[in-house]
């Protein structure tokens, strides 16, 4: 993983650099920002997040398990009350709902971690602590022969620092 890292102070300069790097097809881009910005996402134009699939699968699994555990438990260890059903749907909605929320939410978080590629064991390549403070960053992963081109674009758009990373 080698390439050029540019540190920017301004948002519009970062966006302009991303657009030029994409236009020139210099390499794969990783964009850093202290806070989520629509402008950056618009420039990068990534695919829609797939977290919702994890949410849906988790929620459906949860609601199924919630109902199942209550019905199975009631039937396996029956508390017999004359004139009343051993297992019944209405009170078990509570279990279906609560377990749906729990499993759905936890699988959403799992999906976020999985898709965002965290936890990360290493973070030194292409990262600068300023990206969590007030600066924006672009890491352009490219072949050595194209690094000069990437550097020129980053500098032209006003990067306060450009350095090679490997």
């Amino acid at each position, binding site marked *: 993983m080698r390439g050029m890292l540019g540190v920017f102070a301004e948002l519009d300069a970062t966006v302009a650099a991303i657009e030029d790097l994409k236009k020139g097809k210099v390499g794969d881009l990783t964009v850093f920002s202290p806070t989520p910005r629509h402008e950056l996402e618009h420039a990068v134009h990534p695919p829609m997040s797939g977290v919702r699939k994890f949410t849906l699968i988790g929620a459906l699994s949860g609601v199924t398990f919630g109902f199942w555990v209550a019905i199975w438990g*009631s039937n396996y260890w029956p508390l017999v009350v004359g004139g009343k059903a051993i297992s019944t749907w209405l009170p078990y909605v509570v279990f279906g709902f609560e377990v749906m929320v729990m499993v759905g939410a936890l699988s959403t978080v799992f999906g976020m971690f999985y898709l965002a590629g965290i936890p990360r064991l290493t973070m030194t390549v292409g990262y600068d602590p300023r990206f969590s403070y007030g600066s924006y960053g672009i890491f352009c992963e490219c072949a050595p022969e194209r690094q000069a081109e990437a550097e020129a674009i980053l500098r032209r758009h006003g990067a306060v620092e450009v350095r090679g990373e490997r």
Partner: protein
Amino acid sequence: MATLAHPDEPRRPNIASADIQLPAVTSYEQVDDEILAILKPTKAWFGALLLALACLGLGAFSWIYQIHQGLGVAGYNPPVMWGVYIITFVFWVGIGHAGTLISAVLYLFRAGFRTTIYRAAEAMTVFAVMTAGLFPIIHIGRPWKFFWLIPYPNWRLIWPNFKSPLVWDVFAITTYLTISTTFLFVGLIPDIAVLRDRETNPIRRRILGVLSFGWRNTEREWRHFARAYLFLAAFSTPLVLSVHSVVSFDFAMGIVPGWHTTIFPPYFVAGAIFSGFAMVWTIIIPMRRWFGLRHYVTLNHLDASAKMVLFTSLAVGLAYLIEFFIAWYGGVQYEQDYFWNRVFGQWWWAAWIMLTCNMILPLSLFSQKLRRNPTWLWILSIFINIGMWFERFVIVVPSLSRDVEPWQWSSYVPTWVDYGLLIGSFGWFFMWFLLFIKQLPVMALAEIKEIIPPKMKHTHGHGGH
């Protein structure tokens, strides 16, 4: 406004609500510097922690004494076998409601005033539910058998009754604690990364690196984060409504005068939000003063939250009045006698504390001048906290002490052990909260940055705010 409708990029929601201005906050660096400065311990903080630990010590002593002597020292007097512990349990679960309401419900409604207060409220929620969870264990008298509360099939002949509200409660509270903690922690990940990048101590830096999961602030991470945050909010919103509804079923499913009523779920939820917001004020108003955060939690924030408190106060007041109306209109003599006894009889003092604190004093919030007066809001928050504890007292004790059969009418007088554990619960709650505010950012750095106009090279360049 609603960023889902952003013309350029409709696919990812903002994590902050955008319709709020912080004119005195001008740069991302200022946000980090000012909010992280809170993490430095002060003498006042040590003093407050010492006080919290003293209260906790009193609670721990009371509990040990109760375990040694038996549950009889707690002032239970048949038929009043639910007392201060169950009252305090419901009280803390209620306090725990505001955090998720502010985080999730107000997020979905794009209420801008949540941005700078929701982190403190979320932490408050987690610690309040942790506190609440202690009381069923204390209440059972033999805490080492607390796992009997967990409904799983076993061979002790204690089979889970899935139709019992107490079993629903275990599921509801467990889910609420899990989701509240998850919501708090997920929101903290980017902010822990900020701490990691500022930390100079290598050991702390490593710990923060692990806790932040190697978060790097990439566009990819933010995209999935924002989507997950939206779904967590969507899950948490009905959860807020369900948890206190389920807690209210503990009472409403019982055929006891004053309890057996269908109004309890919305009445409990409104009361929980009301009391939770009051506790947020109790915490946030001194914090904004002592830590110099008045330009983050502005008078506009307090004004907006005061309107919320006023609304929930009116909802709770309406529920009180409906209870009286239904008792009269229903024509059941036991119910009518019970409500008369509640307000003009044996328990008049508790009922009038409740009515004064929860119905009458909050009416002052119709005045904009008082809504924008932090000192009054803080004083009012203390009254509301007291009033809401007494609301639960009025629900629990008078009903049990004056059941259907006159021969078993009785009274209830809490002992020093009850009061010791009540004070101890406040010590436990504030100990965790005080430790939290000195270890992790008490305001969401990334969200506050999101509502600040970013630095631009050209005034009319890309994006803008």
